[in-house]
Every structure is written in structure tokens, then in C-alpha cells.
């Protein structure tokens, strides 16, 4: 398929990726320049920018946009599995270990932290 399609404008993709990388670095420094900037928004912006960049590479440089849809599904399979893995890890990702009462329990009685954790 990719042998027959018209060549995409690679330089436009290159410029977009370069600009997006510069924006990413700018966003990463936002917290330094503006200390009160919400970290959740900053993190979300960074993830969205990375996904857009990854999509640009996949669609245009790897020609996924011009391939058969089934090949795209094969390429997307890891994303589905990673989503399931993240759901499985959600108790850790949501910071269950960072709750103040758990931190206090660990700091007060480090040797009994494990049984306390089990009872939670």
C-alpha cells in the first residue's frame, strides 16, 4: 500500500515535531517560571503532546495512514494491552501508598507497616 500512495510532506511533519518538542520543553519549565501552576494540567498537557508526536511519527513516517486498517489494528494492540495493565496497576498509580494515614503508620511503626497495610 505504502508503495502506491503519494508521498506525504515529510518536512511539514518534521517542523511540527520540532515545534511540539519545543512546546513540551516550555511546558516542562512552566512550574519553575510559575510555581503555582497546577501539576495535573502540566502532566496532562505533556502526555497529550507526546501522544500527538507519536501519532505523527506513526501515521506519516511509518505510513500507517496509508496502510490497510487491519495493520493499524495490529499496531494499536499494544496500546489496548497497556491500558489493561494500567487498570491492573491502578491501586498503585492512584497513590494508595501516599495516603497521609499510611505514611504516618509507616513512619511511626516501620516494623509493623506490612500487617497494617494488609488490613487496609
Amino acid at each position, binding site marked *: *500500500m*505504502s*508503495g502506491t500512495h503519494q*508521498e506525504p510532506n*515529510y*518536512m511539514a511533519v*518534521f517542523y511540527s*515535531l*520540532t515545534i511540539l*518538542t*519545543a512546546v*513540551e*520543553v516550555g*511546558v*516542562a*519549565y512552566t*512550574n*519553575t517560571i510559575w510555581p503555582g501552576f497546577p*501539576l*495535573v494540567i*502540566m*502532566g496532562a498537557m*505533556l*502526555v497529550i*503532546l*507526546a501522544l500527538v*508526536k*507519536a501519532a505523527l*511519527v*506513526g501515521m506519516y*513516517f*511509518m505510513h500507517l495512514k496509508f*496502510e*490497510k486498517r*487491519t*495493520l493499524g489494528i*495490529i*499496531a494499536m*494492540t*499494544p*496500546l489496548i*494491552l*497497556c491500558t489493561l*495493565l*494500567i487498570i491492573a*496497576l491502578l491501586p*498503585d*498509580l*492512584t*497513590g*494508595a*501508598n*501516599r*495516603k*497521609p494515614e499510611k*505514611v504516618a503508620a509507616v513512619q511511626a511503626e516501620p516494623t509493623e507497616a506490612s500487617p497494617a497495610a494488609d488490613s487496609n
Partner: protein
Amino acid sequence: MSHATTMHAPVEPAESPLTPESWGKLGMWVFLAGDAMTFGSLLAGYGALRAGSLDWPDPTKVLGINLTAAMTFLLICSSVTMVKGLSAIKHGNQKGMRNYLLLTALGGAIFLGLQAYEWTHLITGEHKVLFTTFGEQKSLFGATFYAITGFHGAHVTGGVIYLLIVVMNGLRGKYSAENHNGVEIVGLYWHFVDLIWILVFTFIYLIPNPPNP
């Protein structure tokens, strides 16, 4: 029997249903899907360990963003030279293809050099980021950092060698405007390495720590 053999052309292998150009391209896509699962698992595990840790160092303060941003830009540039190389051979320009592929390999080699410089700086610098310790702390920051960036670096190393093999095949006249599958397949691998670095750059280097409770 021998009469029938001489009468009919040899049986062509069945055409790949998803990538009619070659089975090799489909094979590379399946390999990359599997490889992406490995990277995905590493990054998800990293996320879980980091979110569950109370003393995770702030990566934006420990790791240099400027150098890695330059490394990201370098890989993006090498992806462009890769597509230019494929474009050249599609137009029958063998010399152009070889030169662009050599530039791509050079980009990968410089990337590896910068990574070696970065690792040396982290290991011997003020933070003493080792595999099992971070200064006086025991967080898994170093272990996850070196495992993920090292695994990616191994892919870049493999990519540089793969590119050089393709260049040598090109010197022997293996590729042409009609037959450029080998160049397209190495391109898929190289762009994948670039794509993974884009994600690694964001998740390992840029995402800030949430405030401690």
C-alpha cells in the same frame, strides 16, 4: 511429472494480505507490536513504582532536560533522513539512499554518545544516580531510569548496526526503484525507536512529581 513441472511456472509464495509489498514488512510490524508491549510494560511498571513512592526524586531537577531535548530533536532529524533515504531509492537514486541512511546511522551514533555522556554525568555527578541507590536513598529511580533508557539505547545500537547492513546491501546493488522493501523495513524499525523515545522523554524526563501529602 517432470513434464508438468516444465509446463507450469514455479508456485509463487502467497501474497501477504496486509502488506502486499512483502511478508518482511508484516513481520516487522508484528515484531514492533511485541516490542511496544515490552516498552509499555516497562513504562507502566515505572509509573506504578513512581506513583507509590514517597521519596521519588524530581526528574526535572535531577535529569537534564536541555540535553535530552537535543537528543529528541536529533532522533527526529534522523527519522527525516530515513524517510528521505526511502524516497531516494523509490526514485532509483541509490547513492542518495546510501548517503541518507549513513546520515541516519550517524544520528543514532551521536545519540548513543550523548546517552553515554549523560549516564556518566549522572553516575559520577552530584546526585550519584546508581542502579540501586540515589545518593543516600534507596528509591528505584536509578533502576527504572537505567533499565528503560538502557533498553531504548540497546534498540538504537541495534538500529545503527541494522542501518549499516542495509547500506552495505545497497552498495552491492540489492535495492532499486522496484525493490526497496529492505529499506522500508529498516525505516519502520528506526521510526519506532524514535516514537518510543518521544514517550520515554515525556514520561521519564518531563512529567513532574505530584506534591507529597
